[in-house]
């Protein structure tokens, strides 16, 4: 299975928008349908959310939460890396508990986080 890394601020935007495409550019729906789902269908995906100006809850819910609701089996292929936004970490822990979340995974013995 292929392993793909998506860095939000490089591959998508550093200023995520709202929920749906009709609400504006760089929405959660756009990220889910154009970036996340195609990659998840190919294999495992690591999404790095660090560095964004902010991560609105509606963006996270429509991009990740919707995947957990509609494609629950694909969520197990997902790894989220996020170190600089505690509120977004809390939201994601509630939305996609079955995904691998970097802040919940203990560091390996080699010191890799």
């Amino acid at each position, binding site marked *: 299975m292929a392993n793909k890394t998506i860095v939000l601020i490089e591959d998508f935007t550093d*200023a*995520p*928008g*709202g*929920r*749906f495409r*009709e*609400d*504006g*550019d*760089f*929405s959660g729906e756009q990220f889910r349908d154009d970036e996340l789902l195609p990659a998840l269908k190919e294999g495992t995906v690591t999404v790095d959310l660090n560095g964004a*100006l*902010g*991560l*609105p*809850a*509606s*963006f996270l*819910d429509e991009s990740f*939460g919707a995947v957990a*609701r509609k494609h629950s089996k694909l969520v197990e292929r997902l790894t989220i890396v996020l170190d*600089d*936004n*505690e*509120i*977004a970490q809390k*939201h994601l822990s509630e*939305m996609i508990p079955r995904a691998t979340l970097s802040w919940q995974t203990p560091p390996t013995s080699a010191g890799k986080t």
Partner: protein
Amino acid sequence: MCKLGGHPFARVTLNTLWTMSVRWRQSHNANRLRIQKRRLRSLEKARKRNPLSFIAGAKGNAPTELRPEVDNACPEILDFVKCPQDTAKFFSLLRKRAHKCGAGEMVVNLRNVNEVTPAAALVLIAELCRINFFHRKLKVKVALPAAPEPHALLSNVGFYEYCDGVSTEKSVSGSRIFWKHRRGVDVRQDAVAELINFLPKLSKSATQRLFEALVEGMQNTSEHAYNRSKRSYRFWWLLGYQDTKTKEMAFCFFDQGAGIPQTIRTRFKDKLFLFRPTGSELIHTAVMEGRYSRTKEKSRGRGLPALKRFIDDAIEGELLIFSRESQCVFRDHGQIKSGDYDTKLHGTLISWTLRANGQ
């Protein structure tokens, strides 16, 4: 009396019907007379209140003198915290007057204004925009504030762009630097990023909270505030300023939608007459606890708590939400003030004020 012959029973029935119809006609005429008298009385009252409108005639022929309703309604202080009811009443009257004037002329008299807050200025801008949008034939004249401070504030936020013949050059307004208001539709995170760049350097977490709060506000406006089937008018307005002397900064966001209590009153228990919470109670619960959404989905309802998170980290911060008839003021140290008023504000105003740099 009916003189038809025939069976006695038929005679009695016909007589009864005849009497009933006469009585009905009499009461119907009496009702009509009563309604006419009532109309005449109310016209007389209106004529005594405002004789000019009757001399000028109906719609499209309004006089150019100051309309007493708007003139008298403008309070000296336009502030949603100090005088919420009077301030909301002024904007409500402004809208009603514009609707009545139709294709004529209307004067907005701000001469008596001694104090105006940026939030009230933003609502004033929005109301003028709305009047320009829906009443294109209506000519709006503005009598400028006599006091220099409100005049300077209105100039700096960009209010005079909506007034013909008034200089749009920025005035000096003490230590306050304003980010001129923006108007938009849908979610415009570029406008939010521009506002964040205008402000003094915030901590990373404060920047994230502010970005998320404003984007959530725009998302709520886009998705819930306006009727989605009528996509033409669904604006929001955004304004910010910083005070270089007191280190205060504030941002205001306003939309003219249905209002928060209206859109989140979806739970059955909140609609029941006996247990019906007030609008301010609903707003308070939705902000503090979350999970209140028009869609009733379990995964939703995170937008309103995001509004408050920005002031939670601040040393001294305040969040004001004024929606329809309801107001809630949240302070960072947990104090909350709320109220429901008789006059409604047509829309939702959200205002954040920080009195020290959020760290």
